[in-house]
């Protein structure tokens, strides 16, 4: 673009790292370009021409909105298209239009400048309205104002399918349609101004192993297309226009990490076995069926957690049984002879679906989510259970219920499972009668009554992310309390021990599928606790395996004894760090580079 702005070099920007890896490349902004508005003084005889130009921009905006409205109505339905009625009204707003024209005439200024001043004033006034719902309409007004402005300037948005050079994509947000156009050929990494770990683009980034940072507020005002940029997807760090020394430092880090990955991958085919002969089961957490291919090529392990939310998010219709069955069957067949644990819908909390009318909770993490939601919506739940059951005919499939807090919830869920089986029996549809049923242990109440729950299930999978957050009553997404999100807290170690002991007592198996499983710091402790199956993101398996192959189980158990006497999370972490540093001296320094 011709009017690119000058920004400071070597600028640090932070966001939320959602897909790890480092990339150094050229920035490509997609979506609406940032626009600097110039003030131009007009000669009196240019004024009418300027008003004409403004009229044309309004007309073009109306045409585009009508076309968009028609397209959306066709794809998503009339109700979703209605938003554009409001946008069309705003473009035609006579008060704004009259004021802009009057001021172009009286002040002899260009349309961009006047239009921007007028809409800005209204936007500021609107931001003072006390009603938050009305205040939120600001987004619509900005959207419409941006469109008119783009038409005035004749600059149209860039979409991902038009990007051909490998680039680091910068966007306000990456829409589902842009996500679909993402390939490893055109996208080296991406940074967005908004988003979360669970947005569709973040899921895709992890699955494609593309470094990504979301929630980098203000990124669009700090970078131009063509600028050099470094993205560190592990730490959520971005450096715009890095200087030579910074680039060199990151190149060294990149080389060192690649070297390290080669060492790790050299042990890929070896079993995850401790020095004294205990074998751990490693498994992968996946979000998309396509990820199975990568697992097969590299580690040859099972799937310890298949999150099914991707089927439900960012779409308008609830997926049909056939569509779900197709996805589950594909994973079951592709991962065979290994097994897959399919987790039933875990929606709510920080994960939402567009179409499902989720109740508005004051505190979504303590509200209607996961199994609570499914038990309220038998139609959705039974459909999913039928699809999972049907997939059992094509491989080793286990089913798991998330967020169980009470025995009654488990029993209700089991009744639905039986109902789904009865339906299939009556319809003569094939499935495996002997399906393992497990639950996530992620609510403290379930961890504490694990000895009771263990009698009614085949396995446990401990979801430490939620278990930690619920136990310490701290939302890890809230920076003010994130320091209380302590996976190493003695309470967590004790809960894990209780769950592992309860499962062992009943002869049931237990795995751990939270982020603790992929944190080398905690791996020895987890093994020492008697949890021998760890499920994690595919890209962590190599490191965890390398660590396990150097651990002595006897030492890991002693580590647990020591941890049980700790008062604080810091004491536990110090112990674990000492253990890992002694066992694999080069591991922690490499990971923290």
């Amino acid at each position, binding site marked *: 673009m011709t009017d690119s702005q000058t920004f400071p070099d070597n600028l640090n920007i932070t966001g939320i790292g959602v897909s790890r890896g480092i990339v150094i490349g050229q920035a490509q902004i997609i979506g609406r370009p940032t626009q600097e508005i110039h003030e131009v003084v007009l000669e009196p005889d240019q004024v009418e021409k300027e008003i004409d130009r403004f009229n044309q921009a309004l007309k073009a905006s109306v045409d585009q909105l009508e076309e968009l409205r028609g397209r959306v109505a066709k794809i998503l339905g009339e109700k979703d298209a209605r938003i554009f009625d409001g946008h069309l*009204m705003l473009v035609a707003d006579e*008060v704004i239009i009259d004021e802009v024209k009057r001021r172009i005439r009286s002040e002899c200024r260009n349309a961009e400048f006047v239009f921007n001043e007028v809409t800005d004033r209204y936007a500021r*006034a609107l931001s003072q*309205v*006390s009603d938050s719902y009305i205040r939120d*309409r600001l987004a619509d007004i900005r959207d419409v104002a941006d469109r008119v402005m783009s038409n005035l300037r004749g600059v149209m948005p860039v979409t991902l399918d038009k990007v051909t050079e490998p680039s680091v994509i910068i966007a306000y947000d990456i829409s589902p349609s842009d996500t679909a156009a993402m390939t490893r050929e055109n996208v080296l990494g991406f940074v967005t101004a908004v988003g979360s770990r669970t947005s569709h683009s973040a899921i895709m980034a992890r699955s494609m192993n593309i470094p990504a940072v979301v929630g980098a507020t203000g990124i669009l005002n700090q970078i131009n297309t063509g600028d050099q940029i470094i993205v560190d997807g592990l730490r959520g760090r971005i450096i715009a226009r890095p200087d030579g020394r910074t680039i060199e430092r990151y190149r060294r880090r990149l080389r060192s990490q690649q070297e390290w990955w080669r060492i790790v991958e050299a042990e890929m085919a070896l079993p995850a076995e401790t020095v004294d002969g205990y074998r751990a089961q490693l498994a992968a957490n996946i979000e998309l069926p396509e990820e199975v291919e990568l697992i097969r090529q590299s580690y040859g392990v099972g799937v310890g957690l298949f999150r099914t939310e991707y089927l439900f998010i960012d779409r308008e219709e609830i997926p049909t049984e056939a569509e779900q069955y197709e996805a589950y069957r594909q994973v079951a067949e592709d991962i065979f002879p290994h097994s897959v644990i399919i987790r039933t819908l875990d929606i709510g909390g920080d994960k939402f679906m567009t179409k499902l009318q989720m109740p508005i909770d004051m505190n979504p993490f303590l509200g209607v989510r996961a199994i609570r939601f499914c038990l309220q919506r038998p139609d959705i739940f039974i459909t999913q259970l039928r699809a999972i059951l049907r997939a059992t005919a094509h491989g080793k499939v286990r089913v798991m219920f998330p967020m169980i807090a009470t025995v009654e919830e488990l029993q209700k869920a089991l009744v639905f499972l039986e109902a789904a089986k009865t339906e299939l029996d009556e319809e003569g549809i094939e499935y495996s009668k002997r399906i393992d049923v497990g639950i996530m242990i992620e609510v403290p109440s379930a961890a504490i009554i694990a000895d009771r729950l263990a009698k009614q299930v085949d396995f446990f999978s401990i979801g430490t992310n939620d278990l930690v957050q619920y136990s310490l009553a701290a939302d890890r997404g809230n920076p003010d309390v994130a320091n209380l999100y302590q996976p190493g807290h003695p309470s967590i170690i004790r809960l894990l021990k209780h769950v592992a002991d309860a499962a062992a007592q009943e002869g049931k198996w237990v795995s751990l599928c939270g982020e603790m499983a992929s944190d080398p710091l905690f791996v020895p402790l987890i093994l020492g606790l008697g949890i021998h199956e760890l499920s994690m993101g595919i890209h962590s398996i190599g490191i965890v395996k390398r660590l396990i192959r150097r651990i002595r189980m006897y030492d890991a158990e002693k580590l647990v004894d020591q941890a049980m006497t700790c008062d604080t999370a810091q004491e536990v972490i110090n112990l674990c760090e000492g253990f890992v540093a002694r066992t694999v001296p080069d591991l922690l320094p490499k990971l923290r580079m």
Partner: protein
Amino acid sequence: MSGSVLSKQFTVEGENGFHLRPITLLVQLSGKFDSTITISKDGNQVGTGSVMELLLLGAQKGDVLEVTVTGADSADALNAIEAFFKETAQGND
């Protein structure tokens, strides 16, 4: 009946206040009549030609709006507006 000035008060019932959707509908509705329609809240009076100005009234659920209609078809217009407020009170818009 011609040229009479009519006015009536309505309470905003929609859960989300008098937001973009009902405002859009009201602006569309007002365009069908020749009468001049104004809406006021707490002494601020605005016309029904501007979505922006109506939004800026910031009317929330429970707020009272005074609608004034001036013109030949004022009675029909007021009836239509009354029906509109009844409908938005029931709908979940």
